[in-house]
């Protein structure tokens, strides 16, 4: 059993989501007496530090500075054709979204996505995946070879455990003319709010209904000494600025208080706030997945709740 992990790097460091994939690979390999191979693009093999201690082989493609989905995809396809893994693990990230399906199609492998749990069963992978915004769980059984796309946060990050003693295999970068390039990168706007440092956050979701209702939530946030935040649909609707978005494509926060109103708790939102210390969720749908994670919950109408909260907080009783 050979498992190849699509390692993502940034500034020559392994991304935390990739350390999670390495733990997943380690668990799978341990069960099947298999080997773990780590694929990297564009960085020197010297990245192989103690976090790769249990990696048997580092498959490294160097000699290219391009780090686009196209370049990564072509390089990992070359690696898969040469190394012939039974299982490829990729992360549910912007890069993984592009690389994994294209790899599966080109390499003739099956693909299963949104994986939260993976187990080996003879010559198949059994996966548990969250679909429909986390409302349902699909169990799948997929014959090898397979590409599994794993949801961030599903596995702990691999930690340093000795030194890397594995083999390093270097593969030449594919030579096709690139059809995409990175023009510029923009860091998040540091001048405004920084949700990652907020101790208290009040987050509104789709259930807030319309833009005019944001003001009532902002008033309660102010009375609580909390930063106002929104889930992706709220920000996409233009009701709150991007800097106030929590979740996969927004900020990852860990406040002492996370009060979320009208947020259903899709896995992409959970990814950004599950480290919060105290989570209170209000949503009219009693089956909303947010209630699995929240410490306290209520199913009342948040538009009726907000004036009551405002009144009580103002009265200070």
């Amino acid at each position, binding site marked *: 059993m050979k498992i190849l992990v699509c390692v993502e790097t940034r500034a020559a460091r392994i991304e935390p989501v990739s350390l999670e994939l390495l733990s997943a690979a380690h668990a799978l390999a341990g069960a099947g007496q298999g080997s773990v191979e780590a694929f990297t693009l564009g960085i020197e093999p010297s990245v192989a530090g103690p976090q790769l201690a249990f990696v048997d082989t580092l498959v490294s493609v160097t000699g290219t500075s391009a780090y686009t989905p196209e370049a990564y995809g072509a390089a990992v396809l070359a690696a898969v054709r040469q190394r012939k893994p039974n299982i490829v693990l990729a992360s549910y990230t912007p890069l993984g979204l592009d690389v994994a399906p294209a790899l599966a*199609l080109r390499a003739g492998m099956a693909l299963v996505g949104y994986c939260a749990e993976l187990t080996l069963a003879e010559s198949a992978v059994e996966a548990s995946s969250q679909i*429909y915004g986390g409302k349902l769980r699909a169990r799948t059984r997929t014959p090898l070879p397979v590409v599994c796309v794993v949801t961030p946060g599903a596995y702990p990050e691999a930690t340093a455990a000795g030194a890397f003693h594995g083999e390093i295999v270097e593969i030449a970068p594919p030579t096709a003319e690139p059809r995409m390039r990175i023009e510029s990168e*923009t860091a998040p706007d540091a001048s405004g709010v920084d949700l990652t440092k907020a101790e208290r956050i009040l987050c509104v979701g789709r259930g807030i209904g319309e833009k005019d209702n944001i003001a009532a939530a902002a008033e309660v946030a102010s009375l609580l000494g909390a930063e106002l935040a929104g889930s992706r649909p709220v920000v996409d609707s233009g009701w709150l600025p*991007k800097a106030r978005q929590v979740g*996969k*494509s927004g900020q990852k926060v860990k406040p002492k208080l996370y009060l979320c109103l009208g947020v259903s708790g899709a896995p992409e939102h959970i990814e950004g706030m599950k480290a919060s210390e105290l989570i209170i969720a209000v949503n009219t749908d009693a089956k909303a997945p947010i209630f699995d994670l929240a410490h306290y919950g209520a199913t009342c109408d948040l538009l009726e709740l907000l004036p009551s909260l405002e009144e009580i907080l103002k009265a200070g009783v």
Partner: protein
Amino acid sequence: MIIAVILRLVPDANGDLEIGDSGTEIDREWIDLVLNEFDDQALEEAVLLKEASAAKVIALALAGEGVDRLLQTALARGADEACKIEHDLGDAVSSRAAAPILAAAVRGLGAEIVMTGVQTSEDLFGQLAPYLGASLDWPHLSAVGGVGLVEGMLKARQEQSGGRLVEYRISLPAVLGVQTASQPPRYVSGTKLRQAAGLPLKTLPADGDAGTNTAQIVSLEHPVRQGGAKMLDGSPTQVAQGIVDVLRQHALAKG
């Protein structure tokens, strides 16, 4: 220049989802189907690009219940043409199965840009944009917004974790998985929608074989609550008081 925008109806994940007798798919008998939220963004971005560049937008969808109305709405929102593609893929279409058929339609229409939503809540076996890109052998980029044309190339901004934005230049033809349009999807009046209801739709035959997908759903289940929230019951006033009490217990009430 032709922009093909691919639209899909998906079960409304905000409503109740019941599991069918097979135990491996949801019961679609009474379900509400809605435009995939990211396809909604893709349609808006396609129309914005058209308005900025004089391109032509063709809305494409696999035929099925509610699809005529979906496509007519796309016309009301600024698409120039709308086509439905006949197929025998069944109700729950995997992106992998659909990709070769949609790729053939895109080629047949002579499109140079394909936009669709970055994902759906049910694309368990992979997302459409990269499958289309690989099927067509075109470059593809997911999780994008801010699409434009610069010196004959596409520009697209990818949203990454932590609010980091990466702007790409991509040669045409290309496929984009759109996450967020440059402005919220436009409002269309009831009058305009009623006018669009009479507009003609083209029907295209399925060209090409469906993609194969060896992954199989063994079972579908409602997640079992593990622990979960302590529920605060009562009127909104009682719940508000309950929340403030919890904040006090945790020394989180202000002041």
